Each structure stands twice: as C-alpha cells, then as structure tokens.
C-alpha cells in the first residue's frame, strides 16, 4: 500500500490539474460563445452572396466560367481545417483520420493530390508523412476576421484557377451543438450545387454578366472557405470545452477515490498504533 504522503501528493496534484482544466473549460466556453456569434454574423453575407451568385449563374445560362465547368481531374485539392493546439478531445484526429483515409482510398501517388493545411495539427501530421502540403497557415486567432485568412483563400482559389488542381474539397468539423460536431466533406470547386430558395431575379449587369462572374465567383468561393473556418472554430471551442469538462469531472472522481484510500490508510495506521500501544502495555503486565 502506498504511503500516506504519496496519496496526499496524488490528491494535491490531481486537484491542481483539475483547477487548470476547469480554467481551460471556462476560457473555451467564452471563446465558444464568441465563435458562435461570429458564425451567425457571417450568415447574412453568405446567404446574400449565394443568392446573387445563383441568380447570375443559373439565370443567364449562356455565361460560362472556369469555376463552373468540370474538367478532367488530374489532381485534387484538399483543405484540412484543424486547430493549432490539442486538448480538444477527438476534434483534430477525427478530421485528419477522415482525410487520410479518403486520400489513401482515392489516390495512388503523391502527385494526384495537394493538401492545404489550416492549423498546426494538420500541417504537422501531413508534413511528417511526406504528403504533398502546398499551402499552410498556422496561428489563426480564436476569433478570425476575414482579413486573417484572405491570403490563404485567395491563393487557394488562385491555384484552382491556374490549374494546380482540378477540384477542391474542404474537410472540417461542422458545428451541430455544444456536445456534437460532425466531420464534413464539402466540394467547393468547381461550384456545382448553386441553388437558392429565393425567387430568381433577372438583373441588369453593369458592365456584363461575364465581368461580374469573374469577380463574384472567386469571392463566393473564398467566402465558402471562410464560412467553413468559422464553423470549424465554433466546433473546436465546443469540443475543447467538452473535453475539459470531462477532464475536470474525471479529476473530481479521482480525488474522491484517492481521499477514500487516504482515509482508509490513515485509519489503518491509527488502528495499528493503538494495537501496538495496547500490545506493549499488555506485555508489561
């Protein structure tokens, strides 16, 4: 049996750990709240740009644009969204596992795909395995602005335009609720399911539909990426919050068990002492 002091040490260190996890849970909760607000703030922009894009792309069927046409796929691009730091439960590993399995089942060699890694975890994982990471970004703040990732979105969309890859998927953790997130695969480019629930309006174009698509479609694709990132951030903070709450609960459970063992050991020591005294006294008689 462990000595009393050992048990006491375990109790203390577990207590300290639970304080840390508790603090992390609370900071994640605050970040999660703001991330959800940010994701909500983005909705009007997304809806609007989707509506306009759909109206133009569907409404004027004589327009064509490289981003709307399917071309033979020689290379596929994958955007992988993870966090920079761990301690978020299965948040990162779920996304990475899904991408890793998809790539292994779809592609034979490194030349058939390109990875755009967002977040340190994804970057490290794929770079370590020598997989083709063409673009990476780490150190995205907890509450990203559009400006923070504009370079990445612009470069990614640019790579599709210049033929670095012929289709583009994004993998991220879709936020369902505080306790459930779901790894989602979304095909970004070429833009396919452009539909809108709103009534289509036939617009006048100034100067022309082609000119407008040239500006609008990249912007639309970029906002899809940004939307996925906001979604992923909300998931990340929710996942971390849940993970840390579980850790705190487990620590409490452990402290309870240790205290029980500690009290038992203390009682055993006292009983033994009394037995020794009684035994000593009996020997004197």
């Amino acid at each position: 049996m462990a000595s009393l002091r050992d048990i006491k040490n375990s109790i203390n260190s577990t207590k300290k750990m639970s304080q840390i996890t508790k603090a992390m849970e609370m900071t994640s909760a605050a970040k999660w709240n703001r991330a959800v607000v940010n994701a909500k703030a983005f909705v009007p922009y997304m809806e609007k740009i989707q509506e306009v894009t759909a109206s133009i792309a569907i409404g004027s069927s004589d327009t064509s644009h490289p981003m709307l046409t399917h071309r033979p796929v020689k290379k596929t691009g994958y955007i992988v969204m993870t966090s920079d730091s761990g301690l978020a439960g299965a948040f990162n590993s779920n996304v990475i596992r899904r991408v890793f399995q998809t790539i292994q089942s779809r592609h034979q060699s490194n030349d058939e795909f390109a990875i755009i890694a967002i977040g340190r975890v994804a970057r490290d994982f794929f770079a370590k395995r020598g997989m083709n990471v063409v673009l990476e970004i780490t150190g995205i703040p907890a509450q990203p602005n559009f400006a923070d990732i504009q370079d990445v979105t612009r470069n990614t969309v640019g790579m599709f335009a210049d033929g670095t890859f012929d289709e583009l998927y994004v993998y991220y953790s879709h936020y369902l609720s505080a306790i459930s997130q779901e790894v989602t695969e979304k095909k970004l480019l070429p833009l396919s399911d452009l539909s809108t629930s709103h009534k289509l309006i036939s617009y006048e174009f100034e100067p022309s539909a082609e000119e407008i698509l040239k500006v609008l479609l990249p912007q639309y694709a970029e906002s899809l990426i940004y939307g996925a990132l906001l979604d992923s951030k909300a998931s990340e903070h929710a996942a971390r919050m849940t993970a840390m709450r579980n850790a705190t609960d487990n620590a409490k459970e452990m402290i309870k068990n240790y205290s029980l063992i500690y009290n038992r050991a203390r009682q055993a020591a006292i009983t033994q002492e009394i037995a020794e005294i009684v035994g000593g006294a009996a020997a004197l008689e």
Partner: protein
Amino acid sequence: MKTIKVSVVTPDGPVYDSDVEMVSTKAQSGELGILPGHIPMVAPLEIGAVRLKKEGKTEFVAVSGGFLEVRPDQVTILAQSAETASHIDVERAQRAKERAEQRLHDHKLDHIDFRRAELAMQRAINRLAVSERKF
C-alpha cells in the same frame, strides 16, 4: 420622400442597415446613383466610398472588394470589408498607408506585389478620406 432600404454586409457581419433617399457610389464602370424604384442590377464596386443620403444629411461608408445588388425594394452591398465613417481606425489606416508607400518605393517588387501594395494604398487612402468626409 420615397426611401429605399440599404444594407451593407461583410463576412464579419452587417455594417450598415437603414432606409435612405439615395445611394451613390463608384462602380467599376463609373459613378452610379441609385434612387428608390431602380431596376434590379448587379455591379462590382471600386475601392471607394458609398454615400447615403438620408434626411438632408449624407453618411459615408468605406468599402473595398464589393458588389452592389439592387432590387426594387432593397439595395445590398456585399463587401469583403466595410466601415462606416465613425468606425474607421484612423491610426491603423495611417500606418497602412505609410507601409504601402514604403513598399511602393521599393523597386525590387515584382508585378503582383506591386499591385498588392497599390491596392493596400488605395484602401488606406479611401478609409482616411471617408473618416475625414472629404469628397
């Protein structure tokens, strides 16, 4: 006086929402003025100011990378970034302008970087102009 609903939205959230009498701005094809009852239209915007006339006063919003969408009852401006005059961080714009100036003086810049610096410069100047309401 007839009015039209105007909203300016960016990826970071709505920036402006109100009923105004007239919207005027600079589109890529030239100056553009929208009154209530305009036909549906879409036009890409230049980096510049959107002027919103309301009850005899004019309000300014600085936009960059934007679009104007007109519907009979509503005007929507979709921009990658936009700020109303009172929300502009003047110091930041000033710093951005200086940074862009420095980069433009650097002759080793390749074509793309040069264009980028130029755009950054335009955005900074636009923000400063809007914050001082100089038009």
